[in-house]
């Protein structure tokens, strides 16, 4: 491949397109197509109220997928999402039952419980060299067990604090739900971390070639540990927001977020093998998946059919562009 032809083709494109990953462009194109298809069914799919509502629903998945993306960029995976979400929600609600101090500390306590799960994952992957698929599945099961012991298997009676409800459903800026603002803030922070910090560079380096990163003097184990802790914390924070949205925590409330969070990251062009991907793609993937779920349910498709179509569409999209050739 000669450098001149490469430069020649790239030179003719507008700058933002030249820099954009084709997968990200495809994901945004799919969103537009999905909305157009939906508008054929009902005009209301293009109304601002509906779109804003979808953005609000998407922000819960967005927060969770942010952590998942960090882990996938390392070439690992975090399967402890379901019960990290539920643990965050349940522990935040539980703390709320302990007077005014408990209410004040509810959100940080819930997030810290998720960080703890993430730290166990990180220690297992980075220091004990356990494959992430195994250790995160195991911590998920342990977290589930602990929560079942705590709640006795029923939905906990504690309810979310006012602060949690405000974060999930309130409006600080008129017309923009707080959940969307939170997702935007977390997303902006992640973009900054990935592009401007040495931690972000190290994450991409490890995902591309862990051995080269290690031999370059990067403390790879520390980076992996931090990434898993962040993923656990963000999952739990997603759970806190969900509890605020629904006013209380519930058993298996996180189950619906495992596949969508992975799918959103991968649909957004992040390589499942690690090392490649942008946060903008994850945003696109999250919106895409949320819209898909919404449109299927609005069309009053029976649950079984919805699941089948949902799965088939994800596989089809991954086939479409998820299998980028390895660059060498």
């Amino acid at each position, binding site marked *: 491949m000669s*450098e001149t032809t490469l430069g020649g083709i790239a030179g003719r494109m507008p700058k933002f397109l030249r820099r954009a990953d084709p997968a990200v462009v495809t994901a945004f194109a799919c969103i537009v197509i999905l909305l157009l298809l939906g508008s054929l069914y009902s005009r209301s799919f293009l109304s601002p109220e509906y779109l804003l509502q979808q953005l609000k629903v998407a922000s819960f998945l967005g927060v969770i997928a942010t952590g998942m993306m960090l882990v996938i960029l390392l070439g690992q995976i975090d399967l402890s999402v379901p019960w990290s979400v539920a643990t965050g929600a349940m522990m935040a609600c539980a703390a709320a039952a302990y007077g005014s101090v408990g209410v004040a500390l509810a959100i940080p306590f819930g997030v810290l419980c998720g960080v703890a799960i993430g730290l166990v994952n990180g220690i297992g992957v980075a220091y004990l060299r356990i494959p992430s698929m195994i250790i995160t599945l195991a911590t998920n099961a342990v977290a589930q067990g602990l929560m079942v012991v705590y709640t006795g298997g029923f939905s906990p009676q504690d309810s979310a604090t006012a602060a949690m409800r405000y974060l999930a459903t309130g409006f600080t800026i008129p017309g923009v739900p707080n959940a969307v603002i939170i997702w935007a803030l977390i997303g902006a922070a992640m973009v900054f971390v990935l592009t*401007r910090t*040495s931690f972000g*560079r190290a994450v*991409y380096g490890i995902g591309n*070639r862990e051995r*080269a*990163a290690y031999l*370059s003097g990067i403390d790879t184990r520390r980076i992996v540990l931090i990434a898993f802790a962040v993923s656990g914390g963000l999952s739990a924070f997603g759970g806190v927001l969900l509890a605020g949205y629904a006013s209380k925590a519930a058993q298996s409330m996180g189950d619906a977020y495992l596949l969508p969070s992975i799918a959103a990251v991968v649909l957004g062009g992040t390589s499942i093998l690690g090392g490649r991907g942008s946060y903008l793609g994850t945003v696109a993937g999250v919106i895409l998946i949320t819209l898909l779920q919404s449109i299927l349910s609005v069309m009053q498709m029976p649950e079984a059919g919805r699941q089948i179509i949902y799965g088939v569409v994800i596989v089809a999209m991954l086939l479409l562009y998820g299998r980028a050739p390895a*660059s060498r």
Partner: protein
Amino acid sequence: MDGAAPLFRMEGISKRYGGVRALEKADLTVTAGGIHAILGENGAGKSTLIKIMAGVVAPDEGTMTLDGREVSFASPAAANQAGIVCIFQELSLIPELSVADNIVISDPPKRIGMIDRKAQRRIAEEALARAGASDIHPCALVKDLPLSRRQMVEIAKALARKPRILILDEATSALTAADVAKVFEVLKRLRSEGLALLYISHRMNEIAELADHCTVFRNGRNVASYPAGSKSDNEVVELMIGREYSHIFPPKLGPNAAATTVLEARNLSWADRLDNISLSVRAGEVVGLGGLDGQGQRELLLAFFGVLRGLSGEILIDGKPVSISSPTAASHGRIGMALIPEDRKTEGLMLPMTVRENLSFAALDRLSKGGIIDRASEQRLIDDMVGLLAIKTAGLDIPVGALSGGNQQKVVIAKWLMRQPRIILLNDPTRGIDVGTKQEIYQLMRKLADAGAAILFYSTDYDELIGCCDRVLVLYDGAVKRELVGAEITEHALIASALNIHGEGAGPRQGVGA
């Protein structure tokens, strides 16, 4: 052993890998009932020749005849079919399977589609007996056998394919002297049974004991063929050298006794790969590591860089003992060490990432404040490095994988120079790159040394060691066998000590090191 028509003949065989010439019009004649030794330096073309014989790679030109008929092999299986079987350097056995399973693995006897276990066991017993290893039980698992027994199974596996030509590529390098003796008995018996054996080894004494006929390879050509025992060791070494010597190396300043010792090792040992190594490198000195490939040089560099676990012995920096637990510890802070690794594609670079990201990757801590990268100082340092090393790239934001091999290697070196290391370890840095870039690297190395860096340089190319190094330590079997200083560094001395034979006026030295 009559002088009749040869069993196998190769004529005018050439093979190129990209722009690199591995074999150039090489000829080889193999007769039945004889042991034929092939000698040559690293990269002389021996392995390529054998791979062509065994059907692993196809020649670009040339003919091969077996029994007077022209043949060509599309795959190793085709070569096996024709009676050419190769025992490679690395053991090819599957540890979790039984000896019998391994012996018949490529073509197990079948009955109605199932493996016929009785027949399989019979074949394995026969093969083991023929290999002189009937004491090995066919049902034993390979992982339970010691290394030398595994090598016998390897030979039995080859014999079970009923070869007419058996190739042994460094097949004894993993064995102890006692085991080698057993293997030799077997090989001599096979010769008397009429097999043709092709034997490749770097151990001159083995060749002297075993071979009937020798062929020396150099630069992809067969330069001499002679009956074993008709030439002295020194003559053989002369044959293996004999290259024109190119003056592309910068002048050396000569030893500076006043310089302080920066890097020192005392009695370094690791597993069975490093054996009691002591050495020292002074500031401004380029110390070479010589010897055949795989005698512990790579492990030694990795040991200094904190990669190996369970290292015994002591490493001293500036005369003070330090414990280097990881590359992070080795490169950061007071130690200031850099390692240019062996394989730039998997160890030196992240190929899909940009030139910029790769260049600043090893120096991220220096380029950032509070974890946030200072883009201005990053750009400044990168510009300096691109200028200093004359890295040719279409831009800083293209993947480093799009660069040529030589420029990729420059990026690997540059990313470490961004840390301004005091100690630089180089692991065969010029492998697979063009002559022009090689020359630039030699000059850069001398420049860094003159500026006070201590350089430890491993190369598989003897010319480089002669041209670049103030001293050369020759490793053999994980230990320093000889130290060559200044004018003592000649190709003859390097090869002789690499093969662990005592050339003229070159006894092994005691007390290697400072």
